């Protein structure tokens, strides 16, 4: 399936700059979510036009959130290039994101699966709720891991949950227990993905070359920061204050101790491996609810946590 999956009817040519903006946005994305949709959809035997619709939907929602996110965070770069709001204008970035979400509703309503529309609306609502709450966490130095997990469930988890559930809903497999299990799996995937992304900020398994300490420098404690600094926040405030003001990773590791960093990284990986084991357990539960011709879906789902967290295939 294509990643750049929109048609001329999605973005009228008479609207200035819109096509150019979307061309750049969709060109550089990895399309992980739409590829996931493609694999699950194929395993379920969905028609290719339905798979394309679902893939387009998730990419539209995801990219809409990126357009808005970059503006809200005032991030100058996206995927190594100038963010849309800097290259064009903030107004265009807002309108372009809104337009993508509107196109999602137009295309899904034309498809006619009301349950799918409800599911999508809920996912967008959760995503925005998560964004709203996360914005208040910037410069909040007493945030805890459980708080971040709640936000990430809404923000990141909502789209993963949608990716797992939407193909079944598109197939009219509206079984509450099945969808509930998929929701549990999607929740775990969302947390793992976010925590892995947070590790990149500390140059851990950072093959994609993401900017280092970007979150900390902008006053945001991500999940790994909280994990690293929790005991200093309780017992050694001065060290905590020194650590959060660091401008480089070397300085940061000096402030908290290299050994402490490595030890806490091992603990963090261990805790997330526990979540991966829990995910595999949930997959086993899921198998009991799948029809015989659906069981191959679990093969695709099995390797996901490794991909998302460890960023490698088995």
């Amino acid at each position, binding site marked *: 399936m294509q990643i750049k999956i929109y048609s001329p009817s999605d973005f009228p040519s008479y609207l200035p700059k819109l096509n150019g903006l979307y061309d750049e946005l969709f060109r550089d994305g990895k399309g992980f979510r739409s590829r996931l949709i493609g694999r699950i959809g194929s395993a379920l035997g969905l028609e290719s036009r339905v798979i394309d619709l679902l893939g387009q939907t998730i990419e539209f929602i995801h990219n809409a959130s990126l357009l808005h996110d970059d503006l809200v965070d005032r991030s100058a770069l996206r995927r190594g290039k100038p963010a849309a709001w800097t290259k064009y204008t903030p107004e265009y970035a807002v309108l372009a994101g809104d337009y993508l979400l509107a196109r999602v509703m137009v295309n899904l309503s034309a498809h006619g699966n009301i349950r799918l529309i409800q599911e999508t609306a809920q996912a967008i609502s959760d995503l925005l709720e998560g964004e709203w*709450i996360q914005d208040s966490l910037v410069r*909040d130095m*007493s*945030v805890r891991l459980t708080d971040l997990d*709640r*936000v990430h469930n809404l923000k990141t988890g909502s789209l993963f949950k949608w990716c797992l559930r939407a193909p079944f809903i598109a197939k009219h497999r509206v079984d509450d*227990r099945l969808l509930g*299990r998929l929701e549990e799996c999607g*929740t775990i995937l969302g947390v793992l993905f976010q925590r892995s992304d947070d590790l990149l900020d500390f140059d851990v398994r950072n093959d994609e070359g993401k900017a280092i300490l970007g979150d900390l420098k902008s006053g945001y404690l991500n999940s790994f920061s909280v994990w690293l600094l929790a005991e200093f926040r309780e017992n050694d405030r001065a060290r905590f204050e020194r650590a959060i003001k660091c401008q480089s990773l070397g300085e940061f590791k000096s402030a908290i101790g290299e050994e402490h960093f490595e030890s806490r990284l091992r603990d963090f990986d261990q805790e997330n491996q526990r979540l991966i084991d829990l995910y595999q357990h949930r997959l086993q539960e899921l198998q009991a609810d799948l029809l015989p011709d659906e069981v191959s879906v679990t093969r695709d789902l099995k390797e996901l946590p490794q991909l998302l967290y460890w960023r490698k295939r088995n």
Partner: protein
Amino acid sequence: MVTTDRFVTLTADDPRLRLHLMGRDGTRGDRVRPVLVSSLNPHLFRSVQLNEWTFEYVDVAALRRPSLMKVWLLALRPETWVLSLAPMVSVLGILLGTSTALSMTEVLSVISGIIALHAAINLFDDYHDHMRGWDRVESHGGARVLAQGWLRAGEVRTVAWTLFVVACAIGLHVLATRSAGPMALVAVGAFLAGLEFAVSRFGLKYRGYAEIAAWFMFGPMLTVGLNWALTGGWSLSALLLGSLFGSVALLAIHLKNFENILTDGQARLLTWPVRAGFDASKTFTVLCSGLLMFSFALVLVFVTPWPERLIALVALVSGIGPLLGRVSRIKSPVAGEMRGLYRGALRLAWLLFAGFVVGDLIHFWGDQFVSAL
């Protein structure tokens, strides 16, 4: 039942469920403990997965449990005892001040009985929340000693019943020396009210009535009831003290629910803050504080006008000011400022309690000192 080496999921009708909830799995001995897994999914309460319980088999050595004493202190939650201790002690102080015939044994018995009962209710609260599976979705609430596998449910239940029996024994002893009817009525009423709060058979705790129930239970019911039981009559002083300490409990419970507005809202628990909303809850905190100050003013005016009461006023003002300041600064339900609001309210309660006790002691010793002269 679905099991991997590390996890097992049991349905609600699985005969092994109760054993697992009690902290045993029946096959792996005491070295391994089944610990209930909390779901990361905030929508669990809307899901049919509510009828399934997932446990993780954890090596007891890996539980990172603090010392046993610390764990039990966490479980008993002594910081909350002030909510029942303060109103009772204030009434006893009034009665002693009016020279009502009370022996020191009776006074200490009543206080011990109240503490035992309150501690028992705290433990029943944790036990029932665990057995009903609230620990699967709520990352707050209670002492969390069961959720973390630090204690077994059976141990908590045993100690809860033991404390309850102790409280009953003390109560019966006091009954033997006083008019049994009124005291028994008060004791039973207090216990039933406390149990409803903990066990929540009627769900009052999660239907927005917790605050009102707290005002009544920790306020007029305790003070007027105790006064009646010990003197056979009612008194305005007891009522006003009940209103004051009831307002403290009202503020504390409201702040506890406000602190958890996000998680309760996602779990569809209709506490007052969830129903009223974030902004209205902040306003309600100010109103509760106003009620508290007004109640204290009434106590100052109508309850034996000892100047030593001003010590309690200083304690109250010094506690409530910072608390209100914190609430006014809160901008979101996950802000760091939200955390510890309930603890802040309990600190205020202890400050007020200490202010009353110090004032009473100064008054009594002052009188004795003057008499000696």
